[in-house]
């Protein structure tokens, strides 16, 4: 038996097919979920993919957060369902308050697409078990609203609790506070990050690296061993 991992398609989701491909390449079974359905089809984990759901109008993630599927995702995430939010998915998770803080426009005011160096700060979450803490990886990043902000208290708390999962190295591409690229919730089942691991799973396409594959093998192992 392999794990079934749902990928939600919102109107305007773009990297949903890519996430499904990454899940398949890792050996799990991708399951398409639709934003208008509350039914999560009994998946073992959920990926909220990148893109511009609802055009990023109002604020990135602000409209999607109120979709029927998110009612179920919010409820089940609180009960321990592993959820990964990539880019727009991360934005939705902060808007849904499953993760603290908020995402704002890049400080340089441009969309940015680059191969980004990151440090894995926490290899204990549901999605990062196949990394080593301190490991340096390259994952592509592409966004308009990637600036992570939270108040000092929240930031200190995140740091103290080891909930900063990824940090930008060498170059902060968007003005994120404390170079934060990704965080997790207290339980470690919900992870959000701006860079796109699903675009670093095959040597032939994208940036030609596979540093993103461990996200998907991590969750697979965790689910199969559970």
């Amino acid at each position, binding site marked *: 038996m392999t794990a079934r991992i749902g990928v939600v398609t919102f109107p305007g989701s773009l990297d949903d097919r890519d996430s499904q491909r990454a899940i398949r390449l890792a050996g799990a079974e991708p399951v398409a979920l639709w934003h208008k359905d509350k039914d999560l089809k009994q998946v073992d984990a959920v990926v909220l993919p990148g893109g511009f759901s609802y055009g990023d109008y*109002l*604020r990135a993630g*602000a409209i999607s957060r*109120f979709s029927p599927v998110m009612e179920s995702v919010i409820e089940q995430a609180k009960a321990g369902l592993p959820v990964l939010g990539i880019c727009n998915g991360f934005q939705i998770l*902060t*808007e849904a308050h499953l993760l*603290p*803080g*908020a995402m*704002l*426009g*890049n*400080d*340089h*005011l441009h969309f940015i697409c680059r191969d980004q160096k990151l440090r894995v700060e926490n290899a204990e979450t549901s999605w990062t078990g196949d990394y080593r803490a301190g490991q340096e990886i390259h994952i592509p990043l592409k966004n308009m609203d990637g600036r992570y*902000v*939270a*108040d000092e208290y929240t930031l200190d708390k995140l740091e103290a609790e080891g909930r900063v999962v990824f940090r930008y190295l060498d170059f902060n591409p968007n*003005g994120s506070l404390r170079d934060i690229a990704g965080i997790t919730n207290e339980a470690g089942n919900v992870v959000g990050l701006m860079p796109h691991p699903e675009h670093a799973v095959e040597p032939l396409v994208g940036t030609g690296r596979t540093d993103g594959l461990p996200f998907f093998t991590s969750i697979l192992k965790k689910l199969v061993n559970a």
Partner: protein
Amino acid sequence: MARVVVDVMLKPEILDPQGQAVQRALPRLGFEGISDVRQGKRFELEVDGPVDDAALARIRDLAESFLANTVIEDFTVRIDEVAEAAK
């Protein structure tokens, strides 16, 4: 029909690069004497029916839960006097 305006601004402690970009450009355009610029959003809502206190309260809820993200933004809600007066 009445118009309600919701203004949403970043909280003062949050960096506002758009406002800064405008401010930085001012000297180049020959503008002196503006010490700070902040850029926010303005929503104009056309409300069917009278805008009584109950309606305003509902719009305040809407602003709080949806139009603004209160983690980073403040908002104000008011009836658009100009649009009212023009009636």
